[in-house]
């Protein structure tokens, strides 16, 4: 089955967002990560696989352990995307603020 993988799919799930928040602080092993969740080790592994496929996290070997780390640049993509769209609404709402303030003055 062909599934689409992108950064938005990565952040659509609350567990994956929690994983991102955890490894944003420091690179972690799958075992250390699993300890933070009630879900099974397999469930956490599945989330890690999706995050890896979305290229939001990468593995790095350190001694015998595999650590997952966050790809900061990928996170910035999300930020950029949201920022652009958010700005349109900000601009629009600032205009509405001005209009409301004018209308209130007229009522006085």
């Amino acid at each position: 089955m062909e599934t689409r993988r992108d950064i938005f799919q990565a952040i659509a799930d609350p567990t994956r967002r929690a994983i991102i928040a955890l490894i944003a602080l420091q690179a972690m092993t799958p075992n250390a990560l699993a300890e933070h969740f009630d879900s099974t080790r397999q469930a956490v592994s599945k989330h890690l696989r999706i995050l890896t496929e979305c290229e939001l996290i990468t593995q790095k070997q350190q001694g015998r352990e595999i650590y997952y780390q966050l790809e900061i640049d990928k996170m910035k993509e999300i930020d950029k995307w949201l920022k652009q769209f958010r700005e349109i609404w900000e601009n629009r709402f600032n205009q509405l603020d001005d209009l409301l303030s004018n209308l209130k003055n007229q009522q006085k």
Partner: protein
Amino acid sequence: MRSALLFDFTVDKQTNTINVKREFAAAPALVWDAWTKAELLEKWWAPKPWHAETKSMDFKDGGHWLYAMVSPEGEKHWCKVEYQDIDAQKSFSNLNAFCDEDGNINEAFSRSFWTNTFSGDENMTAVNVDIKYKTTEDLERMVAMGFKEGFTMGLQNLEDLLEQLTK
């Protein structure tokens, strides 16, 4: 952002929904008017440097607002907003579509379903907008178009800045 008023913007790609929350320093009756009367909508709805021009407006259940987003070069994008479930000064829903200047809907673009709610007191009104798309592709496509608008806006800001600097 210029103020401490609440502004929250989230995108949920699982439900294909965009949620926008914003507070305004005015009573619900006034904010409601600004969202539902064409002559007021025209003053703020289009992000600069675009502006909105109304062809017809009939704000009632089953009625619609037919307007164009007009670029500084005069390029027009026609939109039709169909209203339903109007609960005066509390909430209304609308179905948005791109169309031609006669209001014939362009089926190449999927429609979005908006739910807008207003709550507050005489000093402050909170507006909550949920915009739902049929598919993630629709959502992405719409945002890609927003990119274009955002980019144009950015250029406008740059122009303003340059004008100030050259004074």
